[in-house]
């Protein structure tokens, strides 16, 4: 895509013939008019695969936009959290088995930054709660005791996300997520990342395989 920097006639807003000018987050865009309904070409097989990938990943990321805005805050100046997460994950987000494409949940990243992960992360399901624990020491570098921990759980069977609204800190070392009332609790996916107190730095996201017991 080309970049219009004050373009040949400067950025403009509104419709000019078959061209529409707009700006978003201080980025100037020139777009073509929307095609009339029914005039869309059928996608080629390669295009169909790309479209399927886009759809899969976007649909997965959209419900957690609030979460992504926290983990990817440094990238929000010129993108939304979902956009940033999309480009961060697109290269490694898919498992391709012949014609079947699915999401690679273990490789998903909802945050990016130089803060350190905690290490020794564990998660298990008991009595309708998923309990997540992690190492609380910081070893003098890359993290503070008051970093906020963000835990996210996804149930692919009913397409629901779970997490805690209240702040949990690195020092706590434990978070319990309530899943009571959810009948499908198999195949859960759990992730954790940390954000510093000022919400300027984030750690990479760690996928925690769910064990049956503590």
């Amino acid at each position: 895509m080309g970049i219009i920097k004050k373009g040949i006639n400067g950025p403009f807003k509104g419709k000019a013939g078959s061209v529409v000018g707009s700006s978003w987050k201080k980025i100037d865009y020139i777009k073509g008019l929307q095609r009339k309904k029914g005039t869309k070409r059928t996608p080629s097989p390669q295009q169909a695969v790309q479209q399927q990938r886009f759809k899969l990943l976007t649909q997965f990321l959209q419900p957690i936009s609030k979460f992504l805005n926290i983990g990817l805050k440094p990238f929000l100046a010129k993108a939304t959290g979902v956009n940033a997460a999309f480009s961060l994950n697109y290269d490694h987000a898919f498992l391709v088995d012949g014609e079947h494409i699915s999401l690679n949940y273990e490789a998903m990243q909802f945050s990016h930054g130089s803060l350190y992960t905690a290490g020794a992360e564990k998660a298990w399901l008991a009595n309708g709660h998923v309990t997540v624990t992690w190492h609380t020491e910081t070893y003098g570098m890359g993290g503070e005791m008051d970093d906020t921990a963000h835990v996210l759980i996804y149930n692919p069977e009913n397409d629901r996300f779970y997490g805690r609204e209240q702040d949990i800190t690195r020092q706590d070392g434990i978070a319990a997520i309530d899943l009571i009332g959810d009948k499908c609790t198999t195949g859960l996916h759990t992730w954790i990342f940390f954000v510093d107190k000022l919400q300027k730095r984030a750690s990479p996201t760690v996928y925690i395989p769910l064990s049956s017991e503590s």
Partner: protein
Amino acid sequence: MDLLYDRNSPTKTEKPYGKLAVQQRMRLAMAFLNPLRSVISESWLGHGKGSKKKAFGQALKKLMQDALEGDYPDQHVIPERVGISTGILPGLLAEDVVLSEQTLEVYFSSRETPLARANDEVVLVVYSPQRGIAARNTHVCKRNEGYIKVNLPPQLWAVPFHVYLFVHSASKKQYSKSAYVGQLGPWQEG
């Protein structure tokens, strides 16, 4: 088919070799030093004119000059040549290392010179570039103690890591050049 030109075939412009090589050097250097930023921004501060950003930039420059080897696309960082601190204070010599699963102990010695003060503080840094995780001693250790211990974070319990040792004055204004102790891991000691 004697095709001369096809307007529909996309034109590919390859980036020049030099540009790709420099970009890779920069990427490698940045990836290696970034997790150590909190240490480097202090230990190189003398070269940064008081700015932590400039200090990190100087460390980056030094790494790119001294510690990168190979030709594009096989360039790599030589960890023993990386300086995570620099300065005029006399450095330390690692005499012995004892590695257990969760701790690392280093016995060191220091030459007696007028610049080497007994109350200089020793810093031991363990670092895994693959994991992007580092740790340092959290207690104060003096030059004359001859022994330092660091707890290893869980991410380093089962992977090889690099060990660096340096000293700074009590006021943190003067630093020594870092000494590379070696690469240690769960399968080797010393």
